[in-house]
């Protein structure tokens, strides 16, 4: 038996619902239908009254979740696609994110954002929003790259007393399988060395971890050993692990599927160069999606986002610097 990334997300929610009576799920079509992506399949049946279909009202969905959290519940909100969270944006960044700071009352809301590009999904069903949320104080932004992390980090997200933006990558939903669900895990806030190497560090997260690993494999026969760091959480960001890796390799390539301006990749570079400047033997580099909306056509899409091939090419250039 194997478990997909999507099933891991479902299982984590089932687990949370089972273990904690304060947990409930709220979002469009999450009930009997099981959600647009089937991430809540059967949960409405298993947990009657605790998996609620919402109207198409992202602002009110988020507001309701904050109210329930004030009252001690632990809501999980599913946005049908991350892109639609823009209409619930205010409640996320101004209501949820500021509550604790203003009032000392914690706001344990988990917002699940099915995000990222898949072929043919186009500009409004593909976006990466981790950057804009991470910019705001008061939010925790998680970006699991593996089945195991999808499971353990979602469980942890629900347990965290702060609003968590849980960025689950739609491309990984079916593409990624594991043998079984994990029984232990790195804590949120710790990055993971996804592959060891001594020649260069690639720092990335979510779906791009797999592209980076692919690129590292491609480079191995050429004699390059590329270390891949999976951030897991982009806010907080585990600068220590990144820095330690760069200290070993002397080279840094940051890869993100999001747009470049002010993205995770810029943030990593800013941290590494300001705090660990001497560690670098070559200029830090970044590779991101192109600065346009995400295109619909598979040909354009494949060129718009970083791929293993593009990462390998960027890495080769950097290794030669």
């Amino acid at each position, binding site marked *: 038996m194997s478990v997909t990334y999507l099933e891991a997300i479902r299982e984590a929610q089932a687990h949370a619902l089972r273990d904690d009576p304060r947990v409930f799920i709220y979002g469009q*079509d999450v009930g009997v239908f099981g959600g647009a992506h089937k991430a809540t399949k059967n949960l409405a049946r298993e947990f009657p009254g605790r998996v609620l279909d919402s109207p*198409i009202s992202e602002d009110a969905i988020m507001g309701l979740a904050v109210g329930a959290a004030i009252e001690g519940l632990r809501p999980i909100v599913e946005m049908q696609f991350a892109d639609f969270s823009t*209409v619930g944006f205010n409640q996320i960044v101004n209501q949820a994110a500021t509550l604790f700071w203003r009032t000392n009352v914690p706001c344990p809301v988990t917002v699940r954002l099915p995000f990222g590009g898949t072929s043919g999904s*186009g500009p409004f*069903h593909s976006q990466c929003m981790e950057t804009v949320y991470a910019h705001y104080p008061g939010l925790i932004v998680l970006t699991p790259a593996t089945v195991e992390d999808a499971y353990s980090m979602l469980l942890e997200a629900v347990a965290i007393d702060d609003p968590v933006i849980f960025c689950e990558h739609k491309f990984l939903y079916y593409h990624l399988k594991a043998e079984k669900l994990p029984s232990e895990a790195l804590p949120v806030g710790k990055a993971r060395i996804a592959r060891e190497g001594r020649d260069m560090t690639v720092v990335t997260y979510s779906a791009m971890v797999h592209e980076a690993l692919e690129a590292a494999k491609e480079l191995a026969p050429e004699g390059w050993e590329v270390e891949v760091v999976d951030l897991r959480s982009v806010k907080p960001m585990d600068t220590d692990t990144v820095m330690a890796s760069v200290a070993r390799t002397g080279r840094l390539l940051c890869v993100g599927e999001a747009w470049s301006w002010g993205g995770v990749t810029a943030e990593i570079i800013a941290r590494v160069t300001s705090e660990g400047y001497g560690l670098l033997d070559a200029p830090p580099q970044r590779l991101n999606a192109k600065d*346009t909306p995400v295109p619909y056509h598979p040909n354009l899409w*494949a060129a*718009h986002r970083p791929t293993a091939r593009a990462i390998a090419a960027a890495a080769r250039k950097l290794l030669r610097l």
Partner: protein
Amino acid sequence: MLQTVLEPGTAENTALFRETYLAAYRFMLLARLLDDKFAALWRSGRIHGGVFLGRGQEALSAAAGVSLKKGDVFAPLIRDAAGRLAFGETVLDAARTYLGSALGPMRGRDGNVHRGKPKEGYLPMISHLGAMISVVNGILLARRFKKIPGTVGVASVGDGATSTGAFHEALNQAAVEKLPLVLIVANNQYAYSTPTSRQFACRDLADKAVGYGVEAGSVDGTDLDACLKTVGRAVARARAGRGPQMVVATLLRLCGHGEHDDAGYIDPKLKKTPAGRDCLKVAEEHLLRQKWAESATLTAWRSEAIHEIEQVIAQVQREPAPDPFAEEWRAISSKQLSETHDESEN
């Protein structure tokens, strides 16, 4: 885009109405067959991403399209294949968008129902529900500014979209500015899997109108005759300066939300209500009963439509896909202000 008369009163008007009805019917038929074709292409893997059909909603949609004139504005939603054609979209543009042709209006950048030609008053939707209504308002306000009289703008939404803040803000905005907006709500009983009981608690969506100070009409969305009259009247009232109009149609989505969806959640009982009728069949029966067309004519029209669709699809399938190397990766029109900093050149 034919203008519907308000009431089939005089003999002349009867003839005109019949003509409109026939035209609308043919757009419905073409839309249904085009939708079927897209569904088939999707099943065979030739279309990437989603395919969203208007099955069961063609009467309402076609009525919107034929009620508008050149120079009017139309912001269709996902189930508006018929209205798009009636408003002037070609099968070619629809096919090019669905198949991602580089020659299509969206050049492969956006696909499926996300298509339009803004400069022709035909707005390409963004996915966010409710978001197009205020854009229509903006065009209508601009026409008033430019002293271009008589424009009407139709925005089309579903029952689910009425729950969005965007819907509310835009309808109120149109009412405050007294814009010639016709807001058509296709209440097809579901928003994806969500039944109306989880979407709103009012008795009838048309009850919302009074709270905005706009006029409203309700209509059986499966009946082309009623749709033409109700939508036509609303368009005429808007054109006459009576401010925003709301039309709420009752019907049932006779397909999945998208082609990936078997719609197993649809209550079988609903299918047996009047809302569950197939508007295309209803219209055909009406045509035959009224002797506005013979059975053989209907068959001929169908063959014609299929022929057109097949030809277009064959052509589009030979057209070039967008070329990422030739693509201009730039989101703003001001070349001199676009970032020279290009990641891909790193």
